């Protein structure tokens, strides 16, 4: 037994957008192009007429997975708190949405649903009986900038949504699983938590949209020399004209470009391996390793060390590729769009090589 390779069809979002590949072509690529069998989807991207897929869709879904001998691993589900517009969805309603998504996942043969970091633990607890009844595990994603282990005493960080990051998220999930002695709740770590620097496609996008591209180089080259507020102050002094960047100099942009630490450490994985439902293999750009023709790496994300830990701990689940670098290359002509199929193929070369060698 070993770690298994899968693909989140999220990776082919651009091909789908331009109608170059529909989900059937994507499933075929997983089997025939990659020799893999794990399929993950975004519910609202792949399921026609979500949340009420037709019987025909369900029939074809099962048929295509059977035709290409693929397995439905994880379905990614969301929490839109503004859905009703006349009030903020309460936790009971959020649990109802999660339960309904679990039922859709079951109908499509998925083993797991991935829910978001920001889903409150009581919402998951309310949906747990439904997960058990339908034999679908709930996996809470560990998405950057969330950590695996809690921060040292006194340290706080702000995350998406404007709330402080709940650095006990993983502890809460493990405690819930232990409380009910159940495997139906667990974690979906995303390799984005091992990203240690800004991706090249992101840096290049920023340069194309900046009046002074050299400022972007300056930020990246000096990320260890200044704090984020210091850097912003420096930039404002150096480039006082306000119109010089499409989005203004918000902290987020500078902070992203200055990234030099990952939000989790590979060793942190050891204690959560028994709770891992499946994993997201986030990546931005696969480039050939110098001196190793045919071998690829993502320069912004550590894969080797986490995979070594996963091998040592006996992880046997799926890592589903999640290509995201296309997004930063869609501001130019068609000829500059990235090749998603090739990127994912390179990612799988790397995954299999690391599975086999990082012991």
């Amino acid at each position, binding site marked *: 037994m070993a770690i298994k390779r899968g693909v989140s069809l*999220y990776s082919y*979002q*651009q091909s*789908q*957008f*331009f*109608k170059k590949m*529909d989900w059937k072509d994507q499933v075929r690529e997983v089997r025939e192009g990659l020799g893999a069998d794990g399929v993950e989807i*975004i*519910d*609202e*991207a792949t399921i*026609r*007429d*979500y*949340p*009420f897929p037709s019987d025909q869709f369900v029939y074809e879904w099962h048929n295509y997975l059977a035709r290409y001998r693929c397995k439905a691993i994880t379905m990614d589900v*969301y*929490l*839109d*708190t*503004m*859905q*009703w*517009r*006349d*009030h*903020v969805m309460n936790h009971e309603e959020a649990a109802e949405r999660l339960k309904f998504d679990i039922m859709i996942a079951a109908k499509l043969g998925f083993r797991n649903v991935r829910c*978001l*970091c*920001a*889903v*409150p633990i009581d919402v998951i607890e309310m949906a747990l009986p439904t997960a058990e009844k339908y034999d679908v595990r709930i996996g809470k994603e560990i998405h950057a900038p969330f950590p695996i282990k809690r921060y040292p005493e006194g340290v706080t960080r702000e995350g*998406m*949504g*404007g*709330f402080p990051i709940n650095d006990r998220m993983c502890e809460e999930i493990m405690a819930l699983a232990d409380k009910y002695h159940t495997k139906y709740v667990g974690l979906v770590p995303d390799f984005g938590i091992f990203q240690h620097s800004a991706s090249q496609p992101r840096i290049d996008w920023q340069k194309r*949209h900046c009046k002074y591209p050299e400022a972007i180089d300056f930020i990246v080259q000096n990320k260890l020399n200044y704090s984020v507020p210091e850097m912003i102050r420096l930039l404002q002094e150096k480039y006082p004209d306000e119109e010089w960047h*499409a*989005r203004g100099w918000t902290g987020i942009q500078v902070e992203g470009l200055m990234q030099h630490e990952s939000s989790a450490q590979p060793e942190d994985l050891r204690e959560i391996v028994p709770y891992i439902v499946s994993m997201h293999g986030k990546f931005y750009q696969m480039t050939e390793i110098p001196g190793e023709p045919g071998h690829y790496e993502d320069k912004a994300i550590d894969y080797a060390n986490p995979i070594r830990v996963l091998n040592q701990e006996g992880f046997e689940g799926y890592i589903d590729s999640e290509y995201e670098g296309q*997004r930063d290359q*869609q*501001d*130019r*002509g068609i000829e500059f769009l990235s090749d998603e199929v090739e990127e994912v193929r390179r990612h799988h070369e790397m995954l299999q090589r690391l599975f086999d060698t990082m012991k």
Partner: protein
Amino acid sequence: MFDNYLIRKDSLENVEENGKITGFKFAVRIADYRGCFLSLHNGYYITVDGTEYPRELQRFEINGKAPRTFEELKTATLEHWNYDDEAYVYVKKDGGLAPGLHKVGLQQSILSQYGYAKHDEEWVKNPPVPGSGDGAGKTFVVCYYDLELQK
């Protein structure tokens, strides 16, 4: 994301109703990697040749139904805009646009979320005004398109 591709280049047309030109329309895609419940759609920041056309002048055509205002869409809580689908944005402007090239600026405002956020209660009472970046999906900037009026 999809910066250059959110509006179909050959889709800008004037709209005729009851023999009168009442505005213009163009075809759009969602600036995200997933579709959304229509109730979450909060309208667009739209400029044409530097003139802004606020949400109140806009309607949205999708799923084979007649164009709806964004107030009407608020109640479409279980109807989905599929990721794959093109929609039309209608903009009210007596007499429509003049023939020739126009510079159209666009930013969507779709209140899709990744769970609870601090602004939730405020957004129920006062939804953000499109163009602020709120709801812009994965396309943070206002995108500009040079479009030729088709008819």
